[in-house]
């Protein structure tokens, strides 16, 4: 087909020079990757309109209490109440505004409200463990939740996941879609957690650890942790074919 179309179709793509921060597909000590990691090399995909656009979804569906995981039931969940907040930035440090942030997590005892979770720790009738919100004009998000517990997961003998909260972001484009996990400072379980260690560079791993934030602590009420997210940066100019 020799069709040509007019309009601003050759928009700037997203940077590809920093993808090494991500874990490799195959990380054998994380056993599930052995049968689930693709073995063929990824095929380079030019950034067309399909990759430069992406869903802006959920905005009209976010409920008033979706960001507060401690107020989604009749009573308050058991556990250490925390404020989890941070900014979503692009690769140039600019705020990513009005973008959907989703989190999900285990309860304070280390148990997920999920049929597959067989950890013999109690469920909490006042805790679902799922939250969502939109970033504000400065790219800020804020959740109220309880600190998740560690839990065993059978990957290797006496394997325990370091305490973590799952976080999902869209950003402006298909190319900026990110699902990650955030951790807590000083966790004694890091050394044996192959999911955390699948990120190769210790400096990159460090960026998955939230920081204790005394400033945002609410006295007599809750401690605060800060976790900033950086989504992929954009090329300055459209790439040539």
């Amino acid at each position, binding site marked *: 087909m020799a069709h040509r179309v007019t309009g601003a179709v*050759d928009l700037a793509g997203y940077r590809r020079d920093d993808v090494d921060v991500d874990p490799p597909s195959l990380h054998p000590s994380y056993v599930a990757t052995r049968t*689930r990691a*693709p*073995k063929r090399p990824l095929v380079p995909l030019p*950034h067309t309109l399909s990759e430069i656009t992406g869903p802006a979804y959920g905005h009209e569906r976010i409920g008033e209490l979706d960001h507060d995981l401690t107020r989604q039931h009749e009573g308050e969940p058991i556990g250490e109440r925390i404020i989890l907040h941070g900014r979503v930035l692009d690769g140039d440090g600019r705020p990513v505004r009005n973008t959907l942030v989703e989190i999900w997590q285990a309860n304070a005892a280390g148990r997920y409200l999920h049929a*597959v979770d067989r950890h013999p720790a109690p469920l909490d009738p006042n805790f679902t463990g799922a939250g969502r919100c939109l970033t504000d004009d400065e790219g800020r998000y804020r959740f109220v939740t309880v600190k998740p517990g560690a839990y065993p997961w059978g990957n290797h003998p006496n394997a325990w996941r370091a305490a973590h909260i799952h976080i999902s972001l869209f950003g*402006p484009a298909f190319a900026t879609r990110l699902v990650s996990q955030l951790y807590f400072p000083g966790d004694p379980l890091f050394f044996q957690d192959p999911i955390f260690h699948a*990120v190769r560079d210790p400096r990159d791993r460090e960026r998955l650890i939230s920081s204790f934030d005394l400033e945002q602590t609410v006295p007599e009420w809750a401690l605060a942790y800060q976790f900033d997210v950086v989504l992929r940066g954009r090329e300055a100019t459209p790439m040539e074919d």
Partner: protein
Amino acid sequence: MGLPPTPSQTVGPFFHIGIDGWIPSEVVSPSHPDAVRLFGTVRDGEGEPVIDALIEIWQANAVGRYAHPEDTRDELPLEEGFTGFGRACTDDDGRFEFVTVKPGPVPGRGGQLQAPHIAVSVFARGVLKRLATRIYFPDEADANAADPVLSSIEDADARSALVASEEDGGLRFDIHLQGDRETTFFAV
């Protein structure tokens, strides 16, 4: 170089509690006159169904317009309520299903039209970083043959595996994470 991005981590096995349900797998209503059922099974390298995969699709509308501010082609109408985004979790048989419409063609780089396609993200336990692939359409043989992205895949079987097949009045697109029939995944 700007700020280094936040590294990816696996979605894990428990994402349903936060992810499932609130964003529908029906991009359009099943009663839409052009509704297409798009379904498939996700399998691992041993051929076992992947029962804890999250599949997302992103697409243009029927005339090839994305519901996104950077698609500025105002000559192509947007449709009220059409987001172009859907989410589905695989079931106990590793099966997922969407209801959507076939997108129109959209421009590629240099202005050449791409064959109609749907962008797909695959997340799962054991998948440390989002896997990206594309679904093409079986009634677009000429456009598929000319598509710059499909053409960049050297292996003919791998190329044709990105074209959905007609089955049970819908379109079937299976995803193989690993193995002889491994799906082509893209470096986005």
